[in-house]
């Protein structure tokens, strides 16, 4: 479990990125921090692995205050996946994935064997192991990024808009894969995004943030959509602007689901598919 206790972050120039933020991210679940750019969500994420230290308040992993753990060893036991994957362009795919185990002193052969397993886990052909990042597509690079985040078998995975730079089809693919991997591995994931659809698709817990990392609402996807806490949340979800207000409309081809503007959002599956 990750716990934020009244953390704040202000900078010498007076800007206040985070003000008095508290939250618990339960173990084995995915917590999504969602908000517009500049709301402080990335700052919160980086407090967990001490890329940013809070000005006041504390961040806890289980019973340890992260401030008491040296940054470098702390980072090596927490997986981190970022936008554009952040791969090292001068290392082959297999070495990129094995970076942290190698830093931790795992023998090379074992680290490589594990890297190949991870490639399979994230849906990459192992024949790509000896390529360089520049020779992969954006989606493939992102998969390598996820595999690298998992390489040291961390309990915690931090994901900073990891799928923000790939096209929508690939993004949907990667989201599905992440859900599958999470069903297998049960990591404690903190996921940052500005895309509400992505948040609803991936989160067990959704935290909608306003400026200064004020928690506008926290709850399950069902809760935030069914009972938005205030105007801000409703507006962010697109409720009232037609975004998530869906209706059924009968057409000769079947029952369509349409949004508030009458634009088709999907088709009503008949008979309704069972929840997986």
């Amino acid at each position, binding site marked *: 479990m990750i716990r934020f206790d009244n953390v704040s972050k202000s900078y010498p120039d007076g800007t206040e990125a985070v003000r008095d933020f508290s939250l618990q991210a339960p173990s084995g679940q995915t917590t999504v921090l969602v908000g517009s750019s500049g709301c402080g969500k990335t700052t919160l994420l980086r407090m967990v692995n001490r890329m940013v230290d809070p000005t006041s308040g504390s961040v806890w992993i289980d019973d340890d205050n992260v401030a008491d753990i040296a940054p*470098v060893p702390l980072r090596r036991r927490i997986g981190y996946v970022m*936008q554009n994957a952040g791969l090292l362009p001068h290392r*082959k795919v297999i070495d990129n994935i094995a970076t*942290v185990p190698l830093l931790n002193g795992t023998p090379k052969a074992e680290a490589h064997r594990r890297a190949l397993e991870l490639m399979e886990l994230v849906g990459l052909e192992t024949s790509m192991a000896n390529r*360089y990042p520049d020779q992969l597509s954006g989606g493939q690079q992102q998969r390598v990024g996820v595999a690298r985040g998992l390489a040291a078998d961390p309990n915690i995975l931090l994901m900073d808009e990891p799928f923000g730079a790939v096209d929508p089809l690939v993004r949907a693919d990667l989201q599905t894969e992440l859900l599958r991997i999470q069903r297998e591995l049960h990591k404690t994931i903190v996921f940052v995004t500005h895309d509400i659809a992505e948040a609803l698709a991936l989160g067990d817990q959704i935290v909608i943030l306003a400026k200064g990392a004020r928690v506008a609402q926290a709850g399950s996807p069902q809760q935030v959509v069914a009972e938005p806490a205030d105007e801000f949340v409703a507006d962010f979800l697109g409720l009232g602007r037609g975004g998530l207000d869906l209706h059924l409309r009968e057409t000769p081809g079947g029952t369509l689901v349409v949004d508030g503007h009458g634009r088709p959002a999907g088709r009503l599956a008949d008979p309704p598919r069972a929840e997986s």
Partner: protein
Amino acid sequence: MGWVLANLELIGSRTVSHLLLAVPAIVLSFVLALPLGWFAATHQWSRATLLTAAGLLYAIPSLPLFVVLPTILGFGVRDAANVIVALTLYGLALMVRSAADALASVGAPVRLSSTALGYSAAGRFWQVELPLAGPVLLAGLRVVAVSTISLVTVSSLLGVDNLGLLFVDGFQRGILAEVLTGIIATVVLALVIDALLVLLGRALMPWTRAARR
């Protein structure tokens, strides 16, 4: 052609002397430029000062530097050490800028992600930043190598043994073939060293070729 064949041994020994002056200077300017360039790249306030100083160094004509340096350092004018120090200064003038640009060219996302992975500051420099700065460093080093080899010849005006003596001697005795031989030998030597650097770069930085494929 006749002159060349008659003087093969002379050309060979001058080439060796030439290399013994140029190679240490090239290596030294590279090794010294790295920390200076790193400092300029990481401490913004020092960048302009260091780069301007390097630029002005380059404005000093080489011949007087060869002559004046010994009066400051206590070498003899014709000592190899004197020539090597002067050439190293010129090499630094070019290389500090390259090193600063090269290290600054390593993207912020890569720095960030390697920090997040748990690299220590030193580990990040040696294993991530330095290799990624490699291609720009190599480009700078190639310029330094070629211009150093060409610049060595000026020291022959003081009687220092290298390929430049072929110009001085040929000019004074009116032997066109000798001057021409000196020019061609210098250019060929520079191009050979340049080609060797390119090969070295390919061996050390395999990812740069893979990306272009």
